[in-house]
């Protein structure tokens, strides 16, 4: 049988799988005939694991054993804001794993996020296999454009655990544009407005017959349909507490009921003018009386609850348009992606903002999976091609002295690209530099996501500022980042591929594959799935090499303890800006256990001393610059903002 490749939209709330066959693209329904399956994993009492819409029903009975919205956590550090937020609202237990990774505690077991996502992906794979009657091992998986490198890597790892060879990680808006424009012979400029369960993305593209060029992309990873639900939950819970004096949030069972009701209300408001929310007997009062929630919400009230959230999306749209050097009048169309965009209030607001009605003929829940399937087909078949010219959604930066991060490649730069910036040493006769790689839009290093770091020592030793080190970032069309450092004078080089931090090391992934935990997943499909090739089907051998080079994680760990030395950006960082102690980004707040790296070589402390106060800095200043690293180690150095 011919080899096939599927397209998967691994959504925060729902996932969808699609395939291109015989020139047309179709969504593959699950065993119940549904186009999308909930991205929910339920760990049942009998040890079985169910995924999909059946699992979602489990939330009410066993909230702590049902994992949902895990996409919000994938590829994140435990100390990140997003994880903190999730811990506050999620009914399952989120705990800290090795290297500040995130784990989900289910009874006595801990699961990494790639493992949980792998269960969802496996379900989608099984759905496709049952429908097609053949093994599927190749897929294009769509992720939000605004996903950083860590999140993309983690998603790749998830696919690998699920037994899928990822042909490409595709940006959701790009996929949507493909589904909209592929084979249509259009020449248009379009905006893709993607409001998912947990994230908001906007991309501006130019669509040609066979070339899809992303002009700009922007997003907000803290904004999605779930936030709309939360507004309704808050309303109901606050009113309930005011009238009955009972906090529904404190009772997991009641809270889950409330959540389900709020989500349903939102969904119904996509179709109806008003909804009646009724949750009879949601909780029993202290006097033993069964209390109920009853509330009428119409479009107007719902609008006023969420309008500020909608307005926030347009701020992001402003950014994207500005970055593409366009105005709304230059656009030919607006494509909607994501369930929440069904809401009339969103459609109206989008229409007002873009001064044109959005496209409504493609299902916003299916458009991404369809686009992914189109791309998957063009990557397995040379004939039917559409070339995607994508951009890098986030700036790539290098950590420099003073806790700052200097941009090497700006966001919205087309890829593949290579850019070089020249840096210099910070200290006389400095022997090593630590090259830290960040992704994000903050000038402060700690405001960005750390992708990795490596040490470069093969340069000539000279006075500070005399050594010129060219640091080159290259991003290939798969989005892989390669960083090379080179001493201009000697031509000596060192480089590293940045593929890191899914929270899992290579050996951990192998362990997971060996243990086959995810095999306990009971597909929600009927018997014929059982006869379809089992989910633990072949892993493409070459996939092993694509992911997580063994040494990358070690680099990070080793160097944390090392005597890090700062780079100083050639021209862009005037000494006046160098603040205080060189801060290490390895120690974000909430991670106090991290070994505080020995920092602040004498010379850097002297520069710091000029700007800051402190006896320690003075000592360092008086110390012998360029000798051993000064004894000055500042342990309690919260960076002054």
């Amino acid at each position: 049988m011919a080899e096939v490749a599927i397209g998967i939209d691994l959504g925060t709330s729902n996932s969808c799988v699609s395939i291109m066959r015989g020139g047309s693209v179709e969504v593959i329904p699950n065993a119940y005939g549904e186009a999308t399956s909930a991205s929910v994993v339920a760990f049942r009492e009998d040890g079985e694991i169910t995924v999909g819409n059946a699992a979602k029903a489990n939330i009410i009975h066993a909230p702590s054993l049902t994992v949902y919205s895990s996409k919000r956590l994938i590829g994140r550090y435990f100390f990140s804001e997003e994880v903190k937020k999730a811990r506050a609202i999620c009914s399952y237990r989120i705990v800290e794993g090795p290297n500040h990774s995130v784990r989900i505690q289910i009874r006595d077991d801990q699961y990494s996020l790639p493992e949980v996502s792998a269960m969802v992906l496996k379900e989608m794979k099984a759905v496709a296999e049952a429908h097609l009657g053949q093994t599927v091992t190749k897929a294009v998986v769509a992720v939000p454009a605004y996903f950083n490198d860590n999140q993309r890597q983690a998603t790749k790892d998830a696919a690998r655990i699920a037994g899928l060879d990822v042909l490409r990680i595709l940006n959701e808006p790009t996929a949507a544009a493909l589904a909209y424009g592929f084979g249509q012979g259009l020449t248009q400029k379009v905006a893709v407005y993607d409001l998912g369960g947990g994230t908001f993305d906007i991309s501006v593209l130019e669509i040609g017959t066979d070339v899809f060029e992303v002009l700009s992309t922007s997003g907000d990873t803290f904004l999605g349909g779930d936030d709309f639900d939360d507004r309704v939950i808050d309303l109901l819970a606050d009113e309930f507490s005011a009238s009955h004096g009972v906090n529904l949030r404190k009772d997991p069972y009641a809270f889950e009921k409330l959540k389900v009701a709020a989500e349903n209300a939102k969904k119904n408001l996509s179709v109806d003018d008003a909804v009646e929310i009724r949750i009879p007997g949601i909780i029993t009062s202290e006097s033993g009386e069964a209390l109920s929630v009853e509330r009428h919400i119409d479009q107007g009230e719902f609008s006023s609850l969420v309008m500020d959230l909608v307005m926030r999306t347009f701020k992001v749209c402003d950014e994207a348009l500005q970055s593409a050097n366009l105005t709304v009048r230059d656009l030919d169309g607006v494509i909607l992606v994501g369930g929440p965009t069904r809401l009339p209030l969103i459609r109206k607001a989008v229409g007002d903002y873009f001064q044109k009605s959005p496209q409504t003929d493609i299902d916003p829940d299916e458009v991404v999976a369809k686009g992914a399937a189109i791309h998957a087909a063009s990557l397995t078949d040379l004939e039917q091609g559409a070339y995607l010219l994508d951009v890098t959604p986030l700036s790539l930066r290098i950590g420099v002295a003073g806790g700052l991060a200097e941009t090497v490649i700006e966001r919205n730069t087309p890829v593949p690209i290579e850019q070089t910036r020249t840096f210099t040493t910070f200290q006389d006769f400095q022997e090593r530099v630590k090259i830290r790689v960040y992704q994000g839009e903050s000038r402060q290093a700690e405001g960005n996501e750390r992708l990795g770091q490596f040490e470069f020592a093969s340069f000539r030793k000279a006075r500070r500022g005399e050594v010129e080190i060219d640091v080159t970032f290259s991003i290939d069309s798969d989005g892989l980042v390669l960083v090379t450092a080179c001493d201009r004078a000697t031509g000596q080089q060192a480089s590293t591929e940045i593929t890191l931090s899914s929270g899992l090391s290579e050996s951990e992934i192998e362990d997971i594959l060996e243990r086959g935990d995810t095999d306990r997943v009971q597909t929600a499909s009927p018997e014929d799935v059982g006869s379809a090739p089992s989910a633990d089907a072949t892993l493409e051998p070459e996939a092993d090499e694509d992911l997580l080079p063994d040494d990358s994680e070690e680099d990070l760990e080793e160097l944390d303890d090392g005597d890090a030395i700062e780079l100083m950006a050639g021209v862009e960082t005037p000494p006046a800006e160098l603040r205080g102690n060189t801060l290490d980004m390895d120690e974000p707040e909430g991670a106090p256990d991290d070994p505080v790296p020995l920092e602040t070589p004498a010379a850097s402390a002297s520069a710091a001393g000029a700007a800051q106060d402190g006896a320690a800095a003075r000592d360092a200043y008086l110390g012998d610059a360029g000798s051993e690293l000064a004894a000055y180690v500042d342990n309690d150095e919260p960076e002054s903002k």
Partner: protein
Amino acid sequence: MSDVLAPTEILALAKILDELDYYQVLHIGTGVSATDVRQAFHASSRAFHPDANRHLDADHREAIARIATRVTEAYTVLRDPKRRRAYDEALRDGQNRMQIAEAEARAEQQATVELEGATPNGRRYSALARQDESRGDLTAAIRNLQTAATFEPGNVHFKNKLQQLRAAQEAQRRGKKGFPI
């Protein structure tokens, strides 16, 4: 450019890449419009997109990747009028590659120089406008810069600066009266 290059041509092109300027990389003339630049980028991308060439052997794929990267590099500089002007200047001095950061820095420098004006009267009134601006007198700054612009009707930086000053004035006015409806 033809869409398909013979494998030997790919290797040859990758080899001489450093000798080509960005216009040659994109196969266009130095005077072409922004639209032509974009179209050339699309055409080159069709020919050199790694996806379209993944059936080739490793050497050729590497060559293709190098060419594709340079094509994007050329495009990121030439598609932006400011960067393109900066590049053109450097190209006249024999520099055929330019990092984006350098292009931006150079463009800024060019802008500063040109904002001072090229004619005696242009320079004089532009200087007055700068003084007015630093005093916070936007109305006078706008008047003087308008005068400067009459001596140098082709100076885009005067125009940009004027726009900027008018926007600032508008913002100031709003700040005082609240947002006009």
